[in-house]
């Protein structure tokens, strides 16, 4: 074998080694994401809690089969683990477990309603404002800034005033505030996006505004919008609880967690679980959702790390 061939052979075999190494190092994006998810302990913890709560909210009422309004004056203020009352009973002898499950369900429904409302409206408004600049930006931006800076409770009280009590005005009020929050971020994203080359290219290509927004801008802002939305689920849950605590929101006998905390507060000294169990449920819901939000942001969009860290800062 000549020197040249020998060297060539070494080179080829080296390059094969390199390729093999690269292959070992290379992980498909989806796998990498899953890997990152698996390594993110907070995300795992949050998801586990979240699944538990989701299960409790969706299947809890079905499995236990009891009626959340059924009362028994013989079985009032029972502590958890009492016979037939897994989590005890309240002052009217109603099963706290089933009421907590239904309360979780109400929280989840409100959170889902609020978030889908906020996500759709926020993305559309933010996109319009960020894309068109000019007066529509100033108008939408002004309204958004206005709503966003408002104390949520004040908005909800005013809404309940106009629309009456119940879940609907709560969803609307919280949804409005969260819409503003999402629209703000989306507007910022679209601002930067619309100066990027491919958008300019699209303009040059004579595409319609709608097509540009729909095909080019929307896909690029969905990820940050979803990550952000996961934060606002937490905000929505807390807001619903706070509002039902002060008597807005779900009307009795439909239980909601905030309402249960409020009812139980007069028994804290004697039967604290009537308030602490729904309270813990709220904390677990919020915690799981915010950990999931934190985790998703780290996994999908590390760039958002600093923007979304304070939920309502940016």
């Amino acid at each position, binding site marked *: 074998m000549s020197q040249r061939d020998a060297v060539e052979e070494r080179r080829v075999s080296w390059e094969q080694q390199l390729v093999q190494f690269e292959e070992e190092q290379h992980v498909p994006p989806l796998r990498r994401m899953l890997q990152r998810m698996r390594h993110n302990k907070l995300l795992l913890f949050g998801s586990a809690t979240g699944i538990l709560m989701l299960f409790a909210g969706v299947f809890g009422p079905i499995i236990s089969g009891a009626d959340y309004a059924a009362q028994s004056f013989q079985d009032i203020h029972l502590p958890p683990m009492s016979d037939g009352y897994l989590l005890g009973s309240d002052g009217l002898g109603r099963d706290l477990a089933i009421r907590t499950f239904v309360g979780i369900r109400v929280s989840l429904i409100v959170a889902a309603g609020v978030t889908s409302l906020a996500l759709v409206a926020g993305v559309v408004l933010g996109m319009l404002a960020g894309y068109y600049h000019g007066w529509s930006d100033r108008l939408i931006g002004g309204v958004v800034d206005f709503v966003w800076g*408002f104390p949520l409770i004040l908005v909800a009280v*005013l809404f309940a005033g106009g629309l009456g009590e119940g879940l609907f005005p709560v969803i609307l009020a919280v949804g409005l505030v969260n819409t503003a929050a999402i629209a703000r971020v989306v507007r910022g994203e679209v601002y930067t996006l619309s100066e990027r080359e491919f958008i300019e290219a699209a303009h040059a290509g004579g595409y319609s505004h709608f097509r540009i927004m729909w095909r080019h801008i929307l896909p690029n802002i969905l990820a940050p919008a979803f990550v952000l939305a996961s934060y606002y689920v937490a905000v929505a849950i807390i807001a619903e609880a706070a509002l039902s605590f002060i008597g807005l929101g779900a009307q009795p006998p439909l239980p909601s967690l905030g309402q249960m905390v409020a009812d139980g507060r007069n028994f*804290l000294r004697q039967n604290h679980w009537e308030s602490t169990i729904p309270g813990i449920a*709220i904390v677990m819901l919020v915690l799981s959702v915010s950990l999931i939000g934190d985790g998703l942001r780290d996994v999908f969009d590390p760039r958002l790390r*600093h923007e979304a860290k304070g939920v309502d800062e940016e």
Partner: protein
Amino acid sequence: MRRIAGRTIYTLIVLFVSSIAVFYAIRLSGGDAIAARLPASATVEQREAFRELIGLNDPIHEQYLNYIGGVLSGDLGKSLTNNADIFDMLLEHGLNSFILGATAFGLVFIIGVPLGMLAAVRRNSWVDSSVMTFAVGGMAIPNFWLALLAVWLFASTLGWLPSAGCCSPNQLILPAIVLAMEGIALTVRMTRSAMLENIEQDFVRTLRAGGLSEKRIVGKHVFRNALVPIISLAGLRIGQIIGYALVVEVIFGWPGLGQVLVNAVLRRDYPVAQFFSLVLITIVVLSNWLADVGYTVANPRLRKA
């Protein structure tokens, strides 16, 4: 300058729109101030006279114009429930709210910033984990529940602090901490991540190359840079505290603006409810504006050369 002028005009527009929104919402919420003022069996004539007196019979836009005209000319009117002068009420309850709010606001930064710095400096240690657990927990606990737990633990069970009332320092502690909690948690998180973000900046290397001690670099330069977002968003904390005060003041029986507003709404005491809502909104809008200014002040990059 233009930025500030624009912001001022914007603020005025917001206030104007808010005043309309508040005016209509409170009127739309049903109920009647008559219940608060007249005996249960007041005659139809008496009720009519009362409506006439407080202008409830005028078209609503006229009522609004009359009202806003009064406010602009300095006549805030009187409470429908007890004839109290609304300006006097504002002074008295405003002071209480100020005491509570300012304390909570102070706590947010006095506790939040050092804790956040500590977590950043001791990154990935047990100190960091504990502080961050506290911060995550602090954001997840709704303040109304925290208030109940605080009363239960510190007032009812341990008896260390009064459960409610105004306005001794002892009575201030619980509501102020509860009011501040979420702000503290957010500030801890923000401070920590801002510190960590800045500690990796190029300028830190320059300062190190300049021979400055690590303590000085982190304690002065990194901290000062990390403060930019914290200070600039301080205004938003004010708005947040005001929102929460509506609930916290009621639970702790603290006679501030929030409690008065809630009472006034319940009684349909229109002049009080309207004016106090507007006051709170004004403070929120001003503090948002302050956040803007704060951003400029804290961040020399935004100051025009």
